[in-house]
């Protein structure tokens, strides 16, 4: 989880005029609570229980970041924000699992290893450059470039946003079972939106996000279908 890294960057760059706002895309506030309370962050830490950032900004996966200048103008639309350094090549399944679960997790880890990783150091350098140079930074896009490089709003993606909105509304109103039909519709309409999928799967299959009677897809099947190389879009620099 990248929260401690965002806090370090905030400590470094806040004196130069950067604020960081973390937003947890979590239907359940309590799922995010312990991470947030442990982070010790002194910047705003918010929870988007409706995944509104997907609809209004075009977020489809995490971690994603958006850069906004002093006038409230976006200078980089949602992009993969890799600020943590991981070595995924050594990932191993825990010992002593039942055979079927063991095979499923091994298969998941093989996919995880094929997900593209981006250079965290380069990302942080780009961020420092923008904080120092503002619009003159090569990493700050013009308003036209921001609009052009934001996600296309296909009719199916717009409908997915409406279905997810109904689903989260019913979920929070206590109609957890009835919400699922709308989450399922959102998954079908916008298959490349991983926040809609993963949050819904997590609620019925915690940790594994495996196949259930409730949803047509699951993490392993869907990442194989999409290709793990497409799981994260390049941040563009």
């Amino acid at each position, binding site marked *: 989880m990248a*929260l401690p890294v*965002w806090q370090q960057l905030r400590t470094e760059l806040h004196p130069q*005029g*950067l*604020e*960081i*706002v*973390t*937003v*947890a*895309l*979590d239907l359940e*506030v309590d*799922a*995010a*609570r312990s991470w947030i309370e442990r982070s010790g962050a002194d910047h*705003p*830490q*918010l*929870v988007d*229980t409706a995944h*509104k*950032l997907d609809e*209004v*900004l*075009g977020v489809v996966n*995490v*971690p994603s*970041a*958006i*850069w*906004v*200048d*002093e*006038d*409230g*103008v*976006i200078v980089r639309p*949602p992009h993969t924000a890799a600020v943590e350094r991981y070595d995924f090549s050594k990932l191993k399944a825990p010992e002593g699992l039942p055979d079927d679960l063991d095979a499923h997790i091994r298969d998941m880890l093989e996919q995880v290893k094929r997900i593209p990783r981006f250079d965290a150091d380069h990302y942080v350098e780009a961020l420092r450059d*923008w*904080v120092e140079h503002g619009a003159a930074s090569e990493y700050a896009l013009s308003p*036209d470039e*921001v*609009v052009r490089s*934001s996600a*296309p*709003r296909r*009719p199916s993606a*717009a*409908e997915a*946003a*409406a279905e997810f*909105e*109904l689903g989260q*509304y*019913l979920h929070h109103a206590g109609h957890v079972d*009835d919400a699922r039909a709308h989450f399922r519709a959102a998954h079908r309409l916008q298959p490349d939106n991983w*926040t809609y999928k*993963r*949050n819904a799967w997590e609620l019925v299959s915690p940790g594994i996000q495996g196949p259930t009677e409730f949803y047509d897809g699951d993490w392993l099947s869907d990442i194989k279908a999409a290709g793990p190389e497409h799981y994260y879009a390049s941040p563009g620099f």
Partner: protein
Amino acid sequence: MILQELRVTPDDLERQTGWELKPEGLCKDDRCVPLSDGTDGLVDVTVVAERLGMPLVHDEAHGLWALGPEAGGRVLASAQLPPIVLADVDGRAFDLASLRGEKVLIAAWASW
């Protein structure tokens, strides 16, 4: 936008979608589409959905609709950050517009 009825006040529509009812029609930024309210002062959401290319999805059992965002073009119609108000873990609302004057990095993450 969640709806329990398909006729809404212009104020509700504007607060939730940013589209404002003016004499010339329904307007947002520099875009306007022809539309007027009914004799009861309410706006027919099915007409709004059709004119603006917004999906309108229904949950029959609960008598609810959701009006989605305009389809077509790009998610960001302009580079101006749209209004975003979200709560912290204690339910306190925070308006991202309150950070004008600072550079802001919005970092989306999740527990899952």
